[in-house]
């Protein structure tokens, strides 16, 4: 077993953008798997909460990708990387559990729309999910690289994706935990 560094909102849905909280507080479908498998839980900070606030709009990566937000994420990523470094130094296995589709916390799928901006209206069905990492995850990758630490295995909560399926989400997480 090892240590799972989890996205903040998986333990605290209150941090979600408005209309984004899938439950009152703890997102059990992910946390329960970590418990069952005996993994230690470490919650990462929510990069969007302190920077863009509770009244933030839903956003794609390009809207958040400013120099100031990058610096904010870099500061948070350094704190997380320092904690991961402690674990790695002890020889503990580490996984990172993000939020697929998130412009900040996506681990294999983020959101992108280079034209989005201005008045916050856009057509339903706009395809915004693309392969890639969110901004905070990118900064964690950089912070670990600066420490000479390899990027951990990843899994993601998939609620935001079309065709979300809890069984598939669980299978993906279990696969990451098993290595």
């Amino acid at each position, binding site marked *: 077993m090892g240590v799972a560094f989890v996205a*903040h909102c998986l*333990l*605290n*849905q*209150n*941090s*979600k953008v*408005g*209309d*984004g*909280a*899938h*439950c*009152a*507080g*703890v997102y*059990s479908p992910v*946390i329960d798997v970590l*418990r069952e498998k005996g993994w*230690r*839980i*470490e*919650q990462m*900070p*929510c990069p969007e*909460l*302190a920077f863009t*606030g*509770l*009244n933030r709009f839903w956003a794609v990566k390009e809207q958040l990708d400013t120099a100031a937000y990058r610096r904010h994420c870099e*500061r*948070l990523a*350094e*704190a997380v990387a*320092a*904690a991961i470094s*402690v674990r790695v130094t002890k020889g503990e296995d580490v996984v990172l559990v993000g939020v697929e589709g998130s412009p900040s916390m996506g681990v294999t799928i983020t959101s992108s729309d280079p034209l989005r901006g201005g008045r916050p209206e856009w057509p339903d069905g706009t395809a915004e999910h693309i392969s890639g990492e969110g901004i905070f995850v990118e900064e964690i990758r950089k912070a670990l690289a600066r420490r000479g630490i390899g990027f951990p295995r990843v899994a993601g909560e998939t609620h935001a994706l079309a065709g979300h399926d809890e069984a598939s989400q669980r299978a993906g997480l279990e696969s990451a935990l098993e290595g």
Partner: protein
Amino acid sequence: MKPDERSFRIMLVADGYVNPPPGGLDAVAVAAQTGWGVMQLPTDDYPPEVAGPLLAEVAEQVEEFSRHGYGFVLVGERAGLAEALAKVGVPLPDGTSPGTAAQLTEFLAARPAPGASWDTGQPGG
């Protein structure tokens, strides 16, 4: 903001209650059952240079929630938390160090309703 399922209630939880020893109280399970969110405090095992920045980030996020009327409690203790919160002008919330899930559940049930709610029309402030 559009309504969603958030509770507007958050527990600041010492690591020993998030990752309890065998037979220990799992505060995350209680939070899941009672509808509270969890903000984990860094483990005491971390050296100050690792724990300090993590505590500062917790405090900054608590500040944002507090500005908008979200309710907080503290479960367990964490050295340095009061100082980190003081730097952002937030007092240490009421706390408990329960021994059982029933004790924690009882404590949470006695908490006043948070200032923020979808009913007030001021979910975010």
